[in-house]
């Protein structure tokens, strides 16, 4: 039997945790027991607390940790192109089957067009950027799986 999560109880406890400034609450009622705790890592709070500390630019957060499985990151900073030129067809579109080595997109950096091949065979699940957008190193461009 699937466990029924009493989300409202958790929310109530979380609100109580916030309200009371506690570090942790464990709540048991009969066979039901809930234990909640504040996160221990306080570092991200620095940015959150300072409204004037700007978020990383270009829309994208620069932390390329934990991209979705199958993500194809940009191998360099530059401008991404999804087609060879204006009016030309896109290299790939969502739903296309691609083989490892098929060109997925181009990154222009220092006036040089760098073709980026697919790292694996699979299906293009999503395209995460707009044509002509600036991307950072490691920023997810597509998902192929």
């Amino acid at each position, binding site marked *: 039997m699937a466990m029924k999560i009493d989300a409202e109880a958790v929310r109530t406890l979380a609100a109580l945790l916030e309200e009371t400034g506690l570090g942790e609450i464990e709540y048991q009622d009969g066979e039901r027991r809930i234990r909640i705790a504040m996160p221990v*890592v*306080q*570092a*991200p*709070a*620095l*940015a959150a607390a*300072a409204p004037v*500390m*700007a978020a*990383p*630019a*270009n829309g994208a*957060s*620069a*932390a*390329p*940790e934990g991209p979705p499985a199958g993500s194809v990151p940009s191998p*360099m*900073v*530059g*401008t991404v192109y999804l087609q060879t030129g204006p009016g030309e067809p896109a290299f790939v579109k969502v739903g296309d089957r691609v083989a490892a080595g098929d060109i997925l997109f181009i990154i222009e*950096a*220092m006036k*040089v067009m760098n073709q980026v091949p697919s790292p694996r065979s699979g299906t293009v699940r999503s395209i995460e950027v707009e044509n002509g957008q*600036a991307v*950072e*190193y*490691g*920023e997810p461009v597509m998902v192929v799986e």
Partner: protein
Amino acid sequence: MFKKVLIANRGDVALRVIRACREMGIQTVAVHSTADAEAMHVRLADESVCIGPPAAKDSYLNVPAILTAADVTGAEAIHPGLGFLAENARFAEIVEGHGLTFIGPTPAQIAMLGDKIQAKQAALKAKLPLVPGGTELIGSVASAQRAALAAGFPVLIKAAAGGGGRGMQRVERKEDLARAFEVATSEATAAFGDGSVYVEKAIDRPRHIEVQVLGDGKGHAVHLGERDCTVQRRFQKLIEEAPSPVLSPEQRDHVGRLAAGLAASIDYRGAGTVEFLYAGGEFYFIEMNARLQVEHPVTELVSGVDIVEAQLKVAAGVGLDLRQDDIRANGHAIEVRVNAEDSITFAPSPGTVKLFHPPGGPGVRVDSHMFQGAKVPPYYDSLIAKLIVHAADRTAALARMRRALDEFVIEGVSTNLNLQRRIIRSSDFVANTIDVVWLERWLAA
């Protein structure tokens, strides 16, 4: 003035440039490796661009990535900070070739000052005292002997491409010269792929004294007084102070004029440092660093001049609105470098900072990119904070530094704070009976 500047660096120097830009109303672009995604320079910049993986060669030394980041963000100028690409003439040239402003000297000045022989020739032309010898490469034992006799024993045979003491041979007597020349040449070839060597007089137990200069790039230059950076370990400075406690006012004026004279003679652009050895009452030019220096804050505190602001103004064509007569030294400043390395073993200590409590109160300046939760990555240098104090005189500055060091708490990574506390209290440092190899002797004692 610039609207937007990209800072091609990380750590405390990137933060220093961002602070100057914010105060001048200039937008900033931080570049960073994936290891620095949460770093302070990224948090405080108006925009940031991830330019590569942790290894410096793929990120902070990655010229195409840095220029592309400037392109996509529309930055007009690049400040190289110090280290990384700051003294790379080719980088400066590429930046200017892209129609951007390089905030630093001209590529030709960087190249010239980066070449020891050329730099010494420029210094000689500007009538700076050199270490005897060292102005030409030595190709044979015979010419080594002529050079050694001219300079006077003891001499050093040094690799032209070397640095940090590598490829160096000390020779006390004429009889030992031939063998030392062979060893130096072959070591230089092995270490640097270049066997060129030169011979110069060995200056024993000198102090390291350097002069901060600013030039407008058109022949006008001023000096902001000298710094004494004699506390070193393996050629790495650990403590700097201004003014030097061992110079007379006349010597101070003299060495300042020499340094400004060199800068003016080469139409030097921006901020630079002219380095001297000082021994037996004499100065010996060693080199000129064509960049901002880690220890620039001691000069800022004593002179009242914002050196990074001056760099930005000169680079933007606003010029240098300082005359030598405007500059007055005021009080005494001391900087200690706080490194993430063990106070005893000197082992680097990367990790996450769990507690960062800098000292405060009167006369205390802290330049640091650390904060609670900050990461000290293992990929870059270990400098995590500069603690600088300013007081009316050296005695008061020492007292202030002792109390400030005692307030400083960093947890999560090992630091050299305890070592610095010991050095500042040591009788040799207090009494100033030190030289550039004193710290190593003292540590071994």
